[in-house]
């Protein structure tokens, strides 16, 4: 399929651009030298597969990233939105959900001193990137690229909303064939 071919080539070109601008030089050098540990599948033009069955269509692809450091999430959002623009996907919105703070109050001392406590908190910041009207193959390529470049300490949740055809048995409402029905007793 033409769309999947262009998207694969787009990813390969994009990786050079993104690695040059956004990742620090040390990481780039390291990835090229120590590739024996990364077990990446070789991306060649023969990996493009053409199949007869129609592609899955997604009405909305929602990527939610969470992390402790807001600056890291800012740069990741810039990276993901740039990747979506380069691949030609429609970016619906990219917003920041309110943070969640987990607080613990513990005793400061091992033994006695009940009045002296220590408070810890764990902050989780969120970012949401929503793409609309994405095909299955584009979604797969985009998600693979995004996931491979997730920074350490950042977790990602993906929600896909697919568009399906209405199944045949409920395509027509029952009351249209009402004359053939007989009430059961």
């Amino acid at each position: 399929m033409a769309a999947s071919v262009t998207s694969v080539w787009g990813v390969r070109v994009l990786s050079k651009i993104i690695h040059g601008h956004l990742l620090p030089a040390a990481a780039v050098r390291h990835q090229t030298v120590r590739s024996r540990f990364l077990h990446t599948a070789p991306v060649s033009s023969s990996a493009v597969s053409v199949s007869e069955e129609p592609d899955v269509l997604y009405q909305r692809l929602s990527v939610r990233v969470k992390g402790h450091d807001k600056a890291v999430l800012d740069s990741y959002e810039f990276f993901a939105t740039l990747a979506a623009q380069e691949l030609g996907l429609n970016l619906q919105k990219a917003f920041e959900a309110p943070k969640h703070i987990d607080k613990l109050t513990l005793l400061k001392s091992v033994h006695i001193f009940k009045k002296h406590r220590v408070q810890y908190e764990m902050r989780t910041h969120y970012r949401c990137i929503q793409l609309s009207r994405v095909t299955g193959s584009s979604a797969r390529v985009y998600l693979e690229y995004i996931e491979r470049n997730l920074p350490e300490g950042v977790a990602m949740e993906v929600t896909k909303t697919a568009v399906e055809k209405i199944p045949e048995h409920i395509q027509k409402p029952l009351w249209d064939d009402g004359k053939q029905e007989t009430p059961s007793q």
Partner: protein
Amino acid sequence: MATSLVRQTKLLSIVTSQFNSAACFRNIHCTAACLKNRAARIRVGKGDKSVTYEQAYHPHDIGHRKGWLSQHTSNLQGEDEAAERVVEDVFIRRFMYGTFHNCLADEVVIKRRGNLLVICAMMIQKLLPSKFYFLIGYSEELLSHFYKCPVKIEMQTVEEKVVYKYL
């Protein structure tokens, strides 16, 4: 005399408030010794102790002036296995401290990307480069067999420990 048990703190505060109005300005510290925070802090001394950037700033500066030493996702909201990561981290730090004896310039930074475990360390140029390479390979092999995941060590060497200030 039958006097009610007055708390030492209240009695002394009454005494000191009477004294403060006069020329005497001595205050008595009478709270329990637990009041001060001592975690990860190097106490100010005579000015002869050299201290790195990591040691100079206190734990409340993490996120503001300091970064995180161990980066993984298990402490986020809705994620688990935090305790296993902590145990692994402690073992890795002790292992690095022991394998590279007296060579560590600063704390070891541990990053986890998916399955990959990246250990970033700053070393003093105490050994020959060939010895460093051997120890890096040895640590990577041993830790990857131990933790059943690929382990990478990213090392940077420095001539001397980088001093931030003297306390």
